[in-house]
């Protein structure tokens, strides 16, 4: 299973992505079900109760890709997937911009749902990304949510 083959595609990029094009790539031999997750930048920080003008994401080039690859290869086997794509944007994003795409295909639907859901829980808590939210008054590094750590626990084998 090679990274950036049609079967496993992992990209960290500034550019936006096209959900139809990505869905077509996920559609491989034996695929019966495709589950896509699209994350969207929200214009409101619920934790600190304030509006957000923009968000800047940074990552650790090399490490971020390889850590995602490890977990995707695990999922690929665990849920017998037929393809996986993870696209994560970095740089400056505005509210309502697309921020992340996780697409998973499988023969059967529950495996596709579970694989996609797991990768998202993992990205929220373990993938080397850092986010700073900006508004007119201040900038605020986003810390992780404990609810996200709890979410990851449901996947313990």
């Amino acid at each position, binding site marked *: 299973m090679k990274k950036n083959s049609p079967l496993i595609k992992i990209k960290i990029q500034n550019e936006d992505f096209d959900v139809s094009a990505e869905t077509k790539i996920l559609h491989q031999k034996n695929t019966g079900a495709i589950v896509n997750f699209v*994350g969207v930048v929200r214009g409101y920080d619920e934790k600190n109760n304030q509006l957000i003008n923009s968000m800047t994401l*940074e*990552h*650790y080039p*090399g*490490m971020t890709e*390889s*850590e995602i690859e490890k977990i995707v290869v695990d999922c690929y086997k665990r849920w017998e997937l037929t393809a996986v794509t993870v696209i*994560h944007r970095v740089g400056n994003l505005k509210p309502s911009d697309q*921020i*992340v795409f996780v697409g998973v295909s499988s023969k059967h639907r529950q495996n596709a749902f579970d694989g996609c859901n797991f990768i*998202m829980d993992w*990205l*929220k*808590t*373990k*993938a*080397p*990304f*850092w*986010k*700073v939210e900006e508004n007119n008054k201040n900038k605020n*590094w*986003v*810390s*992780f*949510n404990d609810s*996200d750590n709890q979410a990851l626990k449901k996947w313990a084998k």
Partner: protein
Amino acid sequence: MVIKYFSWIKEHIGKSEEQFELPKHINNVNELINYLNEIDEKYKLIFEKKEIIKIAVNKTYSSFDTNVSNSDEIAFFPPVTGG
């Protein structure tokens, strides 16, 4: 040795990366942190809450007792969140 910093640690240190010669007697991440604390006050503020700092050695998640040598790339960063 290359040390990389991310997020608010990078802002605090004032740079994203520094290179220096690792003294021979330093063998693991813990010893490296103690050494940095000695040479500059700015590191102390970062490492005083050591338990929340994440570590990578050569781009792999690592821990305080992971071995390091002068040819390694070390990174210190706060808890991560993607998605």
